[in-house]
């Protein structure tokens, strides 16, 4: 089973065309293995990206270097997945 230990979901809300373009360029960086939960749409529309642990620091550095603000929507993806599984098992019992 795939685990998501250390994965985070970052939320970016592009407020300018330059920021939107920077976010769109992230989709080409395949080596970061980013999972776009919400793809870039328009200004003001949130872009949610699940980021594997090894890519977290490089991506955050890249965003900060380019002046693209972001927030952390989910600090620990695996913790939420574990909670979901536990709830299912508990309800089943």
């Amino acid at each position, binding site marked *: 089973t*795939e685990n998501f230990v250390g994965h985070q979901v970052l939320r970016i809300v592009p407020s300018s065309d330059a920021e939107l373009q920077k976010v769109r360029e992230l989709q080409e960086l395949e080596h970061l293995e980013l999972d*776009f939960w*919400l793809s870039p*749409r328009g200004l003001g529309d*949130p872009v949610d990206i699940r980021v594997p642990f090894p890519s977290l620091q490089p991506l955050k550095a890249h965003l900060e270097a380019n002046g693209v603000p972001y927030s952390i929507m989910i600090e620990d993806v695996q913790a939420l997945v574990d909670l979901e599984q536990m709830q*299912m098992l508990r309800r*089943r019992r």
Partner: protein
Amino acid sequence: FVPRSTSTFDYTSYHTLEEIYAFMDLLVAENPNLVSKLEIGHTTENRPIYVLKFSKGGTNRPAIWIDTGIHSREWVTQASGVWFAKKIVQEQDQGLANILDQMDIFLEIVTNPDGFAFTHTSNRMWRKTRSKHSGSLCVGVDPNRNWDAGFGGSGASSNPCSETYRGPYANSEPEVKAIVDFVKNHGNIKAFISIHSYSQLLLYPYGYTTTAVPDKEELHQVAKEAVAALSSLYGTNYKYGSIITTIYQASGGTIDWTYNQGIKYSFTFELRDTGRYGFLLPASQIVPTAQETWKALEVIMAHTRGHLY
């Protein structure tokens, strides 16, 4: 793990494929005069693809199609589909009497069974089908890019490793082909509603072209009324509009194909996330999500029945 009846089924929890299929059999057994289970095909991994039919009789009556779970990781949609199935039975002589007296309802709860099973066993974040196409190590096709509507255009990927891989050709995925064949054979479906999550949107065609659909005004008005009904319950904010103007260009999409088949009332929902959990929406939000979505579905179904064509 099979509950004794659909009244004791736990709608406030997520369930496995087996539990959902067991629920469907229970619902059919409890309501033999209203509900039947159709098998419309088999998946890549040879799982049956089931559709629930809600009908008070007649033959090939005008119908409404609702599907959930085409993207397997969007768990709140399959869970809402289970809730909708029970709601249709509960409302058959009340809120839905008017509709069921004249129309049938088809509900496909698990539209991507292989992907859904995979989210439970191997990768909670899996979105696509589980098909394997020669020449690539990567698995799966985005079933919402595989339809014969602008197939292969911008807004889908030709890279098999991409989450929006369109597939080697239109209808390459048995999960898509099964619906295509069903819709064509039935020939009398008047509304087609495909339910995704997340981002709180109600969308209508087109996604593959900026050309406005001929029925844009009417679809926009119906979407407006449906969103107003949805938001009236818990205040969940939705946007609405055509796919390409509201989100982005997406080719090979389900409702573009259904609209081009002549099914005027073609809509896609992107259910709630309330801005915090994305695809990992807590199970406590299943029922509120299903309830608010139902209010919108009622508007679309009532409009369809009142404007049969």
